[in-house]
């Protein structure tokens, strides 16, 4: 069972692309903490210094569009952000976030209701998002069964290890 996530919301619009999540000039960095210092820099240069560990990015549709850079979700995770809630995610970002263990939630209902600064509490297992500031509760869409089974198996890396062990 994944632990409850808790933090304040930082709200953004639609089509937050990977170029603003982690600008190209930082893509030669592989250190997670160093990447974290530049998370969201192209859109909100103060994000990394303003946010507190556990805080949550809340954004409109098509979050993470653009490049396949896995350092985009890595930078968000490295900043100490606990989760991203969006109306929808771009395809490659969605896979990358799950692969690196950045919790992501699709919930148009939460995105419409939450304002920047609201305190949120998320139960990852049931996709329950509680807004402690507004005293409201929202639900996130369940992961498709295949994704859920991959998550339950410990992620793609664990899946690969199992497949390699079978082949050996």
């Amino acid at each position, binding site marked *: 069972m994944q632990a409850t996530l808790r933090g304040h919301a930082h709200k953004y619009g639609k*089509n937050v*692309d990977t*170029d*603003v999540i982690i*600008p*190209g*000039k930082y*893509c*030669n*960095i*592989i250190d997670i903490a160093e990447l974290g210092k530049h998370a969201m820099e*192209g*859109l909100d*240069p103060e994000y990394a210094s303003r946010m507190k560990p556990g805080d949550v990015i809340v954004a409109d*549709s*098509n979050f993470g*569009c*653009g*490049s*396949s*850079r*896995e*350092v985009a979700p*890595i930078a968000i995770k490295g900043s100490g952000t606990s989760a991203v809630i969006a109306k*929808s995610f*771009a*395809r*490659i970002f969605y*896979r*990358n976030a799950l*692969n*690196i263990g950045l919790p992501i939630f699709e919930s148009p209902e939460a995105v419409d209701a939450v304002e920047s600064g609201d305190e949120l509490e998320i139960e990852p297992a049931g996709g329950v998002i509680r807004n402690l500031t507004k005293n409201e509760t929202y639900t996130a869409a369940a992961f*498709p069964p*295949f994704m859920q089974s*991959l998550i339950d198996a410990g992620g*793609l*890396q664990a*899946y*690969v*290890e199992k*497949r*390699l*062990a079978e082949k*050996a």
Partner: protein
Amino acid sequence: MPMTLTEKILARHAALDAVEPGQIINAKVDLVLANELSAAVAIGVMRQTKGADRVFDREKIALVEDHFVPAKDAQSAKIAKLMKDFAIEQNIKHFFDVGRGGIEHVVLPEEGLVAPGELIVGGDSHTCTYGAFGAFATGMGSTDIAAAFVLGEVWLKVPASIKLIYSGKPGEMVFAKDIMLKTVGTLGIDGATYRAIEYHGTTVDELSITGRITMANMAIEAGAKNGIFHADAKTIAYVKERTDRDFIVEKADPDARYEREIEIDIGSLEPQVACPHTPDNVHPISEVTRDEILVDQVFIGSCTNGYIEDLRIVAKILDGKRIDSRLRVIVNPGSQKVWMQAAEEGVLGKLAAAGCVVNTPGCGACFGGHMGTLGDGERCISTTNRNYVGRMGSPKAEVYLASPATCAVSALTGRITDPRVEAAVTA
């Protein structure tokens, strides 16, 4: 069951008789691609994965140094070396260092590493470029690429297909880039998310291989998983010149099911421009030039428009003239082979004589890495594929996307200019 072109290729690679949209499959890959950025992270993941000591097939992996090379700084050198050392350790057959490669998506087709009916995954979102050859090709992140390196297969959700049918003959100074900008503008940047784009129609039948590359390349700009053309005699001739590997040319069934069919008439299409700050903010040139938009930089190159055909168009427009004194023009031939051919044809000389910087092949300027980064308040018109905030450098810079012809003419006038205006070209 009738299938689209994408479904046919996916079914065969999953050893299934048929697949349908939404189905999760395990598919064998014919080639796995990475550049030094995606490889650096993927190699790290592979090192942490128990039992993942060797790649599945040393001949089915392509590693191309292209983003921060020649190394911009010590950190860039470190990751370039990381990939090179891995290539040597794993005895990777298709490793391309600077001076022998160029931009990954320009290099792979040139080297005969892409053929119709194949399934290719790459650690770069523009991997969808190979759809130009009738292959299924899609971009993924580094963890997925690490899995493909060692397993030789990937899990995929079969995408529903959108059929785009183009008709009409492109007018004067209208190129594949204009057609694709119009397409992205029509679909929107999330209009094809989780979908396959299948290109059809008399207009694209007439396009050159390079034109199809330009169009397949930007499928991701509409969010698509892949963009694909049917291979024809032109495709087969191109591929057979470069490889003697067997390949299977697949065809969509006539009664295949498409989620949407969109007809796009090109006959009356003007040159198109994507204005800041999204690739779907597309307008006809006559609308854009109503205001005087001065530019500081013109960029010619990238996996979208860094091919010999593109450079020839630019050289023809700039031949014997000088670029406007207020701006700089940076040209990156897409690969070492393109660079050499452009040199041999006198193209590079014409560009240099006009006042252009001719760089070594690479991705640097396009993604704000190096070799052409924009500063605060600067404006660039570029042949590349993305114009998000900060894409080419400062978040306070602006990027307009257009064809090589529109960019070249704008280089002469110093402002965004309609390439059909004769006076501008002869100025």
